[in-house]
Protein backbone atom coordinates (compact mmCIF):
# COMPACT_ATOMS: atom_id res chain seq x y z
CA UNK A 1 0.00 0.00 0.00
CA UNK A 2 1.64 3.19 -1.21
CA UNK A 3 0.48 6.73 -1.02
CA UNK A 4 -0.71 7.58 -4.51
CA UNK A 5 0.02 10.88 -6.17
CA UNK A 6 -3.19 12.82 -5.79
CA UNK A 7 -3.08 16.52 -6.48
CA UNK A 8 -5.44 19.25 -5.26
CA UNK A 9 -7.72 18.87 -8.26
CA UNK A 10 -8.13 15.14 -7.58
CA UNK A 11 -8.97 15.87 -3.98
CA UNK A 12 -11.51 18.57 -4.87
CA UNK A 13 -13.08 16.21 -7.39
CA UNK A 14 -13.35 13.44 -4.79
CA UNK A 15 -14.88 15.85 -2.27
CA UNK A 16 -17.61 16.87 -4.72
CA UNK A 17 -18.37 13.30 -5.75
CA UNK A 18 -18.40 12.10 -2.13
CA UNK A 19 -21.41 14.35 -1.57
CA UNK A 20 -23.25 13.36 -4.71
CA UNK A 21 -21.80 11.03 -7.31
CA UNK A 22 -24.46 11.84 -9.90
CA UNK A 23 -23.34 15.40 -10.54
CA UNK A 24 -22.60 15.85 -14.25
CA UNK A 25 -19.04 16.28 -15.52
CA UNK A 26 -20.15 19.61 -16.95
CA UNK A 27 -21.28 20.98 -13.57
CA UNK A 28 -18.09 19.76 -11.86
CA UNK A 29 -16.02 21.41 -14.61
CA UNK A 30 -17.82 24.74 -14.09
CA UNK A 31 -17.50 24.54 -10.30
CA UNK A 32 -13.78 23.79 -10.43
CA UNK A 33 -13.01 26.09 -13.38
CA UNK A 34 -11.52 23.37 -15.57
CA UNK A 35 -12.76 21.88 -18.79
CA UNK A 36 -15.07 18.93 -19.03
CA UNK A 37 -12.51 16.67 -20.68
CA UNK A 38 -10.18 17.13 -17.71
CA UNK A 39 -12.95 16.10 -15.31
CA UNK A 40 -13.78 13.04 -17.40
CA UNK A 41 -10.11 12.04 -17.65
CA UNK A 42 -9.43 12.49 -13.94
CA UNK A 43 -12.48 10.45 -12.90
CA UNK A 44 -11.53 7.69 -15.29
CA UNK A 45 -7.97 7.55 -13.98
CA UNK A 46 -9.05 7.51 -10.31
CA UNK A 47 -11.48 4.69 -11.07
CA UNK A 48 -8.94 2.70 -13.07
CA UNK A 49 -6.36 3.01 -10.30
CA UNK A 50 -8.91 1.63 -7.84
CA UNK A 51 -8.81 4.78 -5.74
CA UNK A 52 -12.49 5.71 -5.97
CA UNK A 53 -15.71 3.91 -6.81
CA UNK A 54 -19.28 5.11 -7.09
CA UNK A 55 -21.95 3.32 -5.19
CA UNK A 56 -25.46 3.63 -3.80
CA UNK A 57 -25.80 3.81 -0.03
CA UNK A 58 -29.16 2.93 1.40
CA UNK A 59 -30.42 4.12 4.77
CA UNK A 60 -29.40 1.93 7.68
CA UNK A 61 -32.99 1.70 8.84
CA UNK A 62 -34.31 0.93 5.42
CA UNK A 63 -31.76 -1.73 4.74
CA UNK A 64 -32.92 -5.06 6.04
CA UNK A 65 -29.53 -5.94 7.46
CA UNK A 66 -29.01 -3.40 10.20
CA UNK A 67 -27.29 -5.43 12.90
CA UNK A 68 -23.52 -5.48 13.09
CA UNK A 69 -21.56 -8.41 14.48
CA UNK A 70 -17.81 -8.88 14.81
CA UNK A 71 -16.26 -12.26 14.17
CA UNK A 72 -12.72 -12.97 15.38
CA UNK A 73 -11.21 -16.06 13.79
CA UNK A 74 -8.20 -18.24 14.52
CA UNK A 75 -7.14 -20.02 11.36
CA UNK A 76 -4.26 -22.12 10.09
CA UNK A 77 -1.49 -19.68 9.17
CA UNK A 78 -0.59 -21.51 5.97
CA UNK A 79 -4.17 -21.17 4.68
CA UNK A 80 -5.09 -17.80 6.15
CA UNK A 81 -5.17 -15.86 2.88
CA UNK A 82 -7.38 -18.39 1.12
CA UNK A 83 -9.68 -18.59 4.14
CA UNK A 84 -9.96 -14.77 4.22
CA UNK A 85 -10.90 -14.77 0.53
CA UNK A 86 -13.51 -17.49 1.11
CA UNK A 87 -15.05 -15.53 3.96
CA UNK A 88 -15.03 -12.34 1.84
CA UNK A 89 -17.31 -14.09 -0.64
CA UNK A 90 -20.12 -14.45 1.91
CA UNK A 91 -22.52 -11.62 0.99
CA UNK A 92 -23.52 -10.83 4.60
CA UNK A 93 -19.86 -10.38 5.51
CA UNK A 94 -18.89 -6.76 4.83
CA UNK A 95 -15.28 -6.64 5.92
CA UNK A 96 -12.47 -9.14 6.27
CA UNK A 97 -9.01 -8.26 7.52
CA UNK A 98 -6.01 -10.50 8.06
CA UNK A 99 -4.57 -9.34 11.35
CA UNK A 100 -1.60 -9.74 13.66
CA UNK A 101 -2.71 -10.42 17.20
CA UNK A 102 -4.56 -13.12 19.11
CA UNK A 103 -6.83 -13.72 16.09
CA UNK A 104 -5.56 -13.81 12.53
CA UNK A 105 -8.78 -12.84 10.76
CA UNK A 106 -11.30 -10.22 11.84
CA UNK A 107 -14.58 -9.97 9.98
CA UNK A 108 -17.74 -7.95 10.34
CA UNK A 109 -21.17 -9.09 9.32
CA UNK A 110 -24.47 -7.25 8.81
CA UNK A 111 -27.33 -9.59 9.67
CA UNK A 112 -31.14 -9.50 9.65
CA UNK A 113 -31.74 -11.99 12.42
CA UNK A 114 -29.71 -14.24 14.68
CA UNK A 115 -30.65 -17.31 12.67
CA UNK A 116 -29.00 -16.01 9.52
CA UNK A 117 -25.98 -14.85 11.53
CA UNK A 118 -25.68 -18.34 13.02
CA UNK A 119 -25.78 -19.66 9.46
CA UNK A 120 -22.76 -17.51 8.54
CA UNK A 121 -20.70 -18.40 11.62
CA UNK A 122 -21.48 -22.05 12.30
CA UNK A 123 -22.76 -23.08 8.90
CA UNK A 124 -20.20 -21.33 6.78
CA UNK A 125 -17.08 -20.01 8.51
CA UNK A 126 -16.57 -22.81 11.04
CA UNK A 127 -17.13 -25.32 8.26
CA UNK A 128 -14.07 -24.03 6.34
CA UNK A 129 -11.01 -26.26 6.52
CA UNK A 130 -8.31 -24.59 8.60
CA UNK A 131 -10.63 -22.53 10.80
CA UNK A 132 -9.93 -23.58 14.39
CA UNK A 133 -11.86 -21.21 16.56
CA UNK A 134 -14.15 -18.21 16.27
CA UNK A 135 -15.44 -15.70 18.78
CA UNK A 136 -18.38 -13.49 17.97
CA UNK A 137 -19.65 -10.34 19.58
CA UNK A 138 -22.64 -8.23 18.70
CA UNK A 139 -22.77 -4.45 18.49
CA UNK A 140 -25.50 -3.12 20.73
CA UNK A 141 -25.05 0.46 19.56
CA UNK A 142 -23.15 2.15 16.77
CA UNK A 143 -21.64 5.46 17.86
CA UNK A 144 -19.68 6.22 14.69
CA UNK A 145 -19.74 4.59 11.30
CA UNK A 146 -17.74 5.69 8.30
CA UNK A 147 -18.62 3.99 5.08
CA UNK A 148 -16.87 6.37 2.72
CA UNK A 149 -13.55 4.65 3.11
CA UNK A 150 -13.51 1.20 1.56
CA UNK A 151 -11.22 -1.37 0.05
CA UNK A 152 -11.82 -1.30 -3.69
CA UNK A 153 -11.31 -4.80 -5.05
CA UNK A 154 -12.72 -6.80 -7.91
CA UNK A 155 -14.93 -8.66 -5.43
CA UNK A 156 -16.98 -5.49 -5.14
CA UNK A 157 -19.85 -6.77 -7.21
CA UNK A 158 -20.09 -10.12 -5.43
CA UNK A 159 -22.60 -8.90 -2.90
CA UNK A 160 -24.88 -7.39 -5.53
CA UNK A 161 -27.97 -9.02 -6.93
Amino acid at each position, binding site marked *: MKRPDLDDLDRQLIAILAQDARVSNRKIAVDLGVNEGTVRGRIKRLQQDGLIAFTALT*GLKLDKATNIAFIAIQADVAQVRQIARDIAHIPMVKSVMIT*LGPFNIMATCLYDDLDSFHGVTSGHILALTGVYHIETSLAVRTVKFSN*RVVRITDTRTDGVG
Partner: protein
Amino acid sequence: MQIRSGRSLTPSSLDALDNSIIDILRTNGRTTNQDIAKQLSITAATVSARLQKMEDARAMRVVAVTDFAALGYNVIIAVGVKVQARSVQAVGHDLAKFPEVLSVNIMNGRHDIELLVALHDFSEVQQFLYDHIGSIAGVAQIDAGIAVDIAKYEFNVAPL
Protein backbone atom coordinates in the same frame (compact mmCIF):
# COMPACT_ATOMS: atom_id res chain seq x y z
CA MET B 1 -47.23 15.01 11.27
CA GLN B 2 -43.64 14.14 11.91
CA ILE B 3 -44.35 10.48 12.51
CA ARG B 4 -46.28 10.34 9.28
CA SER B 5 -43.56 11.94 7.21
CA GLY B 6 -40.96 9.78 8.94
CA ARG B 7 -42.80 6.71 7.86
CA SER B 8 -43.55 7.86 4.38
CA LEU B 9 -41.04 5.45 2.89
CA THR B 10 -40.83 2.20 4.79
CA PRO B 11 -38.79 -0.71 3.40
CA SER B 12 -41.95 -2.21 1.92
CA SER B 13 -42.58 0.92 -0.10
CA LEU B 14 -39.31 0.47 -1.97
CA ASP B 15 -40.65 -1.73 -4.73
CA ALA B 16 -38.86 -4.17 -7.00
CA LEU B 17 -38.10 -1.45 -9.54
CA ASP B 18 -36.54 0.82 -6.90
CA ASN B 19 -34.37 -2.07 -5.74
CA SER B 20 -33.31 -2.90 -9.31
CA ILE B 21 -32.22 0.71 -9.78
CA ILE B 22 -30.30 0.61 -6.47
CA ASP B 23 -28.56 -2.62 -7.51
CA ILE B 24 -27.30 -1.04 -10.73
CA LEU B 25 -26.09 2.05 -8.89
CA ARG B 26 -24.31 -0.03 -6.24
CA THR B 27 -22.11 -1.49 -8.97
CA ASN B 28 -21.61 1.81 -10.80
CA GLY B 29 -23.11 4.90 -9.25
CA ARG B 30 -22.48 7.00 -12.35
CA THR B 31 -24.50 4.86 -14.73
CA THR B 32 -26.60 7.34 -16.71
CA ASN B 33 -30.39 7.40 -16.41
CA GLN B 34 -30.54 6.35 -20.06
CA ASP B 35 -28.39 3.27 -19.43
CA ILE B 36 -30.41 2.30 -16.35
CA ALA B 37 -33.61 2.74 -18.36
CA LYS B 38 -32.27 0.55 -21.15
CA GLN B 39 -31.19 -2.22 -18.75
CA LEU B 40 -34.57 -2.28 -17.03
CA SER B 41 -36.70 -1.65 -20.16
CA ILE B 42 -38.29 1.49 -18.75
CA THR B 43 -38.06 5.17 -19.71
CA ALA B 44 -35.32 7.53 -18.52
CA ALA B 45 -38.06 9.77 -17.10
CA THR B 46 -39.21 6.92 -14.84
CA VAL B 47 -35.64 6.37 -13.65
CA SER B 48 -35.26 10.07 -12.94
CA ALA B 49 -38.57 10.20 -11.02
CA ARG B 50 -37.69 7.13 -8.94
CA LEU B 51 -34.25 8.49 -8.08
CA GLN B 52 -35.76 11.82 -7.08
CA LYS B 53 -38.36 10.06 -4.90
CA MET B 54 -35.74 7.91 -3.15
CA GLU B 55 -33.40 10.84 -2.58
CA ASP B 56 -36.20 13.06 -1.25
CA ALA B 57 -37.22 10.28 1.15
CA ARG B 58 -33.54 9.91 2.18
CA ALA B 59 -33.81 6.25 1.30
CA MET B 60 -30.70 6.27 -0.85
CA ARG B 61 -27.70 8.37 -1.82
CA VAL B 62 -25.19 7.80 -4.58
CA VAL B 63 -21.69 8.79 -3.52
CA ALA B 64 -18.04 8.32 -4.30
CA VAL B 65 -16.25 6.03 -1.87
CA THR B 66 -12.50 6.19 -1.51
CA ASP B 67 -9.96 3.43 -1.09
CA PHE B 68 -7.89 3.44 2.10
CA ALA B 69 -4.82 3.96 -0.10
CA ALA B 70 -6.21 7.11 -1.75
CA LEU B 71 -6.32 8.74 1.66
CA GLY B 72 -2.83 7.54 2.51
CA TYR B 73 -4.09 5.12 5.17
CA ASN B 74 -1.56 2.33 5.17
CA VAL B 75 -2.13 0.97 8.68
CA ILE B 76 -5.54 -0.28 9.69
CA ILE B 77 -6.06 -1.55 13.24
CA ALA B 78 -9.05 -3.20 14.88
CA VAL B 79 -8.95 -2.12 18.52
CA GLY B 80 -10.95 -3.75 21.28
CA VAL B 81 -11.41 -1.52 24.33
CA LYS B 82 -12.30 -2.50 27.87
CA VAL B 83 -13.91 0.24 29.93
CA GLN B 84 -13.78 0.74 33.67
CA ALA B 85 -15.29 3.26 36.06
CA ARG B 86 -17.07 5.28 33.37
CA SER B 87 -20.12 4.82 31.15
CA VAL B 88 -19.28 2.91 27.98
CA GLN B 89 -21.41 5.31 25.98
CA ALA B 90 -19.44 8.33 27.22
CA VAL B 91 -16.13 6.65 26.39
CA GLY B 92 -17.48 5.74 22.94
CA HIS B 93 -18.43 9.35 22.22
CA ASP B 94 -14.97 10.57 23.23
CA LEU B 95 -13.27 7.98 21.02
CA ALA B 96 -15.52 8.91 18.08
CA LYS B 97 -14.02 12.42 18.07
CA PHE B 98 -10.67 11.23 16.69
CA PRO B 99 -10.68 11.55 12.89
CA GLU B 100 -8.44 8.46 12.70
CA VAL B 101 -11.23 6.40 14.26
CA LEU B 102 -13.44 5.26 11.40
CA SER B 103 -16.01 3.38 13.44
CA VAL B 104 -17.05 2.95 17.05
CA ASN B 105 -19.34 0.14 18.09
CA ILE B 106 -20.48 -0.62 21.62
CA MET B 107 -20.35 -4.39 22.02
CA ASN B 108 -21.72 -7.12 24.22
CA GLY B 109 -18.75 -9.49 23.91
CA ARG B 110 -15.17 -9.63 25.19
CA HIS B 111 -14.64 -5.94 24.63
CA ASP B 112 -16.96 -3.13 25.56
CA ILE B 113 -16.08 -1.13 22.48
CA GLU B 114 -14.65 -2.09 19.07
CA LEU B 115 -12.87 0.58 17.04
CA LEU B 116 -11.53 0.63 13.56
CA VAL B 117 -8.53 2.94 13.33
CA ALA B 118 -6.77 4.12 10.17
CA LEU B 119 -3.26 5.59 10.36
CA HIS B 120 -0.72 6.71 7.78
CA ASP B 121 2.20 4.61 8.94
CA PHE B 122 3.54 2.43 11.71
CA SER B 123 5.37 5.24 13.43
CA GLU B 124 1.97 6.64 14.46
CA VAL B 125 0.72 3.42 16.05
CA GLN B 126 2.29 3.73 19.46
CA GLN B 127 1.40 7.38 19.90
CA PHE B 128 -2.16 6.94 18.75
CA LEU B 129 -2.92 3.86 20.85
CA TYR B 130 -1.23 4.91 24.06
CA ASP B 131 -1.27 8.72 24.04
CA HIS B 132 -4.61 9.33 22.33
CA ILE B 133 -6.84 6.34 22.98
CA GLY B 134 -5.15 5.49 26.26
CA SER B 135 -5.62 9.02 27.53
CA ILE B 136 -9.44 8.89 27.37
CA ALA B 137 -10.90 8.54 30.86
CA GLY B 138 -12.44 5.12 31.39
CA VAL B 139 -10.26 3.25 28.87
CA ALA B 140 -8.81 0.44 30.99
CA GLN B 141 -7.31 -1.92 28.45
CA ILE B 142 -6.86 -2.20 24.68
CA ASP B 143 -6.27 -5.18 22.41
CA ALA B 144 -5.09 -4.36 18.93
CA GLY B 145 -5.30 -6.48 15.82
CA ILE B 146 -3.12 -4.90 13.15
CA ALA B 147 -4.34 -5.56 9.64
CA VAL B 148 -1.71 -6.94 7.29
CA ASP B 149 -4.23 -7.34 4.47
CA ILE B 150 -7.79 -6.25 3.84
CA ALA B 151 -9.60 -8.88 1.81
CA LYS B 152 -12.88 -6.98 1.84
CA TYR B 153 -14.16 -3.76 3.29
CA GLU B 154 -17.36 -2.34 1.90
CA PHE B 155 -20.48 -1.16 3.61
CA ASN B 156 -23.37 -0.06 1.47
CA VAL B 157 -25.46 1.31 4.26
CA ALA B 158 -25.33 4.64 6.04
CA PRO B 159 -27.29 6.56 8.59
CA LEU B 160 -28.77 9.04 6.06
